[in-house]
């Protein structure tokens, strides 16, 4: 990766890192942390869905697995929070590998893959809702113990910066994906699996590595979520909300681009807040707007918000007369 590849990334992270020091209120910081967590889940979805073309409707399976593992390892086994978060990410990746191995081996793609991932997330939700070690329907409540080893901070800004660091690493991974040989293989599989295979790409292995990376990033989002809110139940961890948010962010921002999920999450969550404010607390209106955005983006801007900018640039370049 050249310096030119990294410059926009560094700039964006610097601006976001400066945000909490502008004297923002606690609720604005809460909003920003949630948005970054959703962006992180979206970066994860984008690895598999954007670069790999495998649309998952059940990324909650990984988000929830990361969150439950992070919480349970601390509460039941007394692990250090950092270790638990790391293990949560690893277990999330394993869940990704397992689901990926079963579905890709069976040759599922397109709508079949979307359906099977959705079903896995639902099975996980029902199991977590009735098992004992997940706290069942009552959920898990992480004890409040601020400290570096417990990954809980009295100052919200510290946690914000931690989440931002995770987003930074995940964006770096996406940037690498855009430039690396593995990324090229993944995109080749997305564009035409048969052709990629004919050229010697091991499609199954490429897709498996992609789903493991994708699941790991989304599991990190789940782990950070439970670490911030200190509460988890099956509906939050494995609910459809996060599956939907994780795919909305990259699609609205710009599918298959490194920055798409971050731009999409910021735009959508911001829009959601504004709508909620305007509607005066009527439930669901923000999601109505999200759904409408999804349809509108697919109808009018298939490359998302980032694509709009690129399209305008391309048009401007085309407008220059050939002889000039």
């Amino acid at each position, binding site marked *: 990766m050249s310096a030119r590849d990294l410059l926009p990334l560094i700039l964006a992270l610097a601006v976001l890192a400066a945000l909490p020091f502008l004297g923002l209120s606690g609720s604005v910081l809460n909003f920003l942390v949630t948005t970054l967590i959703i962006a992180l889940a979206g970066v994860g979805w984008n690895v598999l869905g954007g670069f790999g*073309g495998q*649309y998952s*409707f059940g990324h909650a399976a990984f988000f929830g697995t990361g969150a439950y593992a992070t919480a349970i390892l601390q509460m039941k086994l007394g692990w250090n929070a950092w270790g638990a978060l790391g293990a949560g990410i690893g277990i999330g990746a394993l869940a990704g590998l397992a689901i990926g191995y*079963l*579905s890709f081996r*069976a*040759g*599922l793609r*397109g*709508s*079949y893959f*979307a*359906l*099977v991932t*959705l*079903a*896995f997330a*639902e*099975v996980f939700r*029902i*199991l977590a*809702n*009735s098992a004992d070690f997940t706290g069942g329907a009552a959920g898990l409540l992480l004890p409040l113990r601020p400290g570096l080893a417990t990954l809980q901070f009295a100052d919200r800004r510290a946690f914000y910066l931690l989440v931002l660091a995770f987003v930074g690493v995940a964006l770096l991974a996406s940037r690498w994906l855009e430039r690396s040989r593995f990324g090229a293989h993944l995109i080749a599989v997305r564009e035409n699996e048969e052709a990629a295979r004919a050229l010697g790409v091991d499609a199954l292995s490429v897709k498996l590595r992609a789903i493991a990376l994708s699941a790991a990033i989304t599991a990190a989002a789940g782990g950070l979520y439970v670490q911030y809110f200190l509460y988890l139940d099956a509906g939050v961890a494995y609910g*459809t909300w996060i599956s*939907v948010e994780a*795919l909305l962010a990259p*699609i609205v921002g710009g599918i298959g681009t490194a920055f798409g999920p971050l731009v999409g999450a910021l735009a959508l969550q911001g829009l959601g807040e504004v709508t909620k404010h305007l*509607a005066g607390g*009527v*439930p*669901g*209106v923000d*999601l*109505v707007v*999200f*759904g*409408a*955005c*999804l*349809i509108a983006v*697919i*109808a009018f801007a*298939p490359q998302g918000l980032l694509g709009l900018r690129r399209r305008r640039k391309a048009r401007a370049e085309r407008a220059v007369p050939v002889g000039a």
Partner: protein
Amino acid sequence: MYAPQILIEAALNGLMTGAVYALIALGLTLVYGVLHIINFAHGALLTVAMFAVWGAFALFHLDPYWAMLGIVPLMFGLGYGLQRFVIGPASHGSDNNVLLVTLGLSIVLENALLALFRSDTRALDSDAALQVVELGPLLLSTPRLIGFAASLAVTGLLWLVLNRTDTGRAIRAVAREKLGARLVGIEVDHVYAVTFGLGCACLAVAACLLMPTYYVNPRSGAAFVLVAFTIVVLGGMGSIAGALVGGLIIGVVESFSGLLLGDSLGQIGIFLIFILVLLVRPTGLFGARA
């Protein structure tokens, strides 16, 4: 162990529920068979129809069975319009886009209902739900028996429409060979929209049959939609006979796993069948196409 009477009743109840499931799955499989798309908004559209039945009863005291006469054409029109003016144009002919557009539609519909009606659960305020028919030692709920018979009748009717009418022939022609159908003068976009409309009409019938014994809230449809997907996958995508048989099987499985495992864990049986069928035999019992 359970007394045989309980087991027989569970099986019969499963069959009766399964017939209505089959009707819901029928709409999904019909759309898949012709448009080759998975309609993710199917559950949300069912919720819309169920709210319509509830509204007709609450406002005009209209019996759900009579309400069918109005709600079925309305849902047909809604489905026709959605496919013709939203899903078709927005998806630019890509299957992945259809998936996302219908997902977007389901989010919009479900949450619009949530904004309008909040998350309260509503049921028809009538005692028709409690009527039973005595069949020897067995007691069977009358509205569910009606639901069973009507679902079978509608499945038969749909089969007749597809096999004996010009519209049906056009639908089957488009399903088989889109380009060829266009060449002989069939308006493909119109046939797509009619098919989608028929799928929604099936939902309307199902809603009228369900409401006397069921309740509705903005998330009701979501509970049915994965069941419907399971049935469609089990029966074979696009197969009408498959939807019927699959619906009956799933109804019985749900009834028994509910009896053995309790209501919340009982749902798992359905999802496991779903995942298993997708992984082992994605063409289903009756399907030829994957």
